[in-house]
């Protein structure tokens, strides 16, 4: 079982003092949730869990521990974020010990909650089944029906770089084509697209949870907090909300790994990943770049090629 192997591996690393700290997932205070835990001693390693709700991207926390040698539990997408951050010199790659887990694809808890009547008390997983105990009794559901759309399109479930692998490699076969939301959205007319964007961003309460959840959003002073120059007013006017969402997404150009942490963090259920998916698609089409896959490839916006596409320039 992956969880048992994970705890053993963590104990080994901590008792041999190969790492100062392990960042992993622990049991959440509610069913369907896992919480980040920071394990410092071998005894504490039993707090680590692994299930289909370990959805956060733990690479976010690496910034806070960049003076330590850190072990971090990563899925395919998280591992790519770590590589992308190392490329941006957030830490030295040798500081990080990746404990890679081939991802079984994560379950959309909001979708699951909607499908089950009454409050969910406990959730168990058995193979491709989820057994949900709710107030009214037990329900057995098919796992594949409740996956995150992003996870369905995932092509990097196994960590791409060298890691201490826990669990067996899974076969890389996406259930849908790449960037499904972006491809769907592109088919609409420009007016429809703007109307959709407006409708989504209109709900934004500017809590910045999307920014906090994202491992790539680490600026010491975010453009929304800067007062000189003051890029954006602290208002809830639709224009400012749109401005925030355009720039937040655009800053991910060539850096996003499609982990979906931003969208899951949103308390208002704003669709966000269709924005970053488009940027990933652009970067792949224009510059043949995929984030965090090649540890030697520079981020696309900090380099160039003489023959980059320029048919749009007069």
């Amino acid at each position, binding site marked *: 079982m992956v969880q048992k192997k994970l705890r053993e591996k963590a104990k080994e690393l901590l008792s041999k003092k190969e790492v100062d700290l392990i960042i992993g997932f622990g049991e959440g205070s509610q069913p369907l949730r896992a919480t980040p835990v920071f394990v410092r001693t071998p005894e504490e390693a039993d707090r680590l869990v692994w299930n289909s709700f370990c959805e956060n991207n733990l690479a976010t926390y690496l910034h806070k521990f960049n003076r330590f040698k850190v072990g971090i539990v990563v899925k395919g997408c998280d591992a790519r974020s770590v590589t992308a951050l190392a490329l941006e010199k957030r830490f030295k790659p040798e500081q990080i010990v990746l404990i890679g887990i081939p991802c079984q694809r994560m379950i959309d808890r909001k979708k699951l909650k909607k499908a089950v009547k009454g409050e969910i008390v406990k959730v168990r997983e058995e193979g491709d089944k989820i057994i949900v105990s709710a107030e009214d009794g037990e329900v057995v559901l098919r796992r594949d029906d409740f996956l995150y759309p992003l996870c369905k399109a995932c092509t990097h479930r196994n960590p791409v770089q060298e890691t201490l692998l826990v669990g067996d490699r899974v076969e890389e076969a996406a259930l849908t084509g790449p960037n499904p939301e972006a491809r769907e959205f592109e088919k609409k007319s420009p007016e429809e697209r*703007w109307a959709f964007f407006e409708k989504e961003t209109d709900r934004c309460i500017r809590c910045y949870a999307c920014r906090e959840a994202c491992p790539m959003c680490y600026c010491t002073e975010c453009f929304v907090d800067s007062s000189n120059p003051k890029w954006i007013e602290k208002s809830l006017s639709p224009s400012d909300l749109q401005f925030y969402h355009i720039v937040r997404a*655009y800053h991910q150009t060539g850096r996003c790994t499609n982990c979906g942490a931003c969208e899951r963090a949103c308390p208002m259920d704003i669709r966000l990943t269709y924005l970053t998916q488009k940027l990933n698609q652009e970067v792949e089409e*224009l510059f043949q770049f995929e984030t965090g896959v090649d540890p030697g490839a520079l981020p696309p916006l900090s380099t160039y*090629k*003489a023959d*980059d596409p320029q048919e749009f*320039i007069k």
Partner: protein
Amino acid sequence: MEPTWEPKILAFLCNWCSYAGADLAGTSRIQYSPNIRVIRVPCSGRINPLFILKALQNGIDGVLVSGCHPGDCHYLTGNYIGRRKSATLKRFLEYLGVEEGRVQFSWVSAAEGGKFSQVVDEVTRDIKKLGPPKHFAKQMRVQGV
């Protein structure tokens, strides 16, 4: 009588090529549309996408970014870096639903006064066709302006 609407277009011109190109157009007395407001920047690679968005938010009808031809950059690679930013930003804005042509890009060298006037005329014509932006611009606070 309602005055006819004239677009306000913001042009970011690089100091070394396009700004000199605009200067040449002026000293050569070439006529072009008076709709542009020029901001001189050191290099087209200096353009932060925030500049363009902020301009659109503050009620500018169109943006033109112009720099040196590839290979001619005063800082050697600035316009190459700028080109990548422009390509991704332009595609992204169009994906969101901003009209094609609202934000435009060009290469104008210091010797191309004629091309500069042509580009400005083309951009002005495009923006006039699009009309004032329907979304994103902040509402004017003062009535009747």
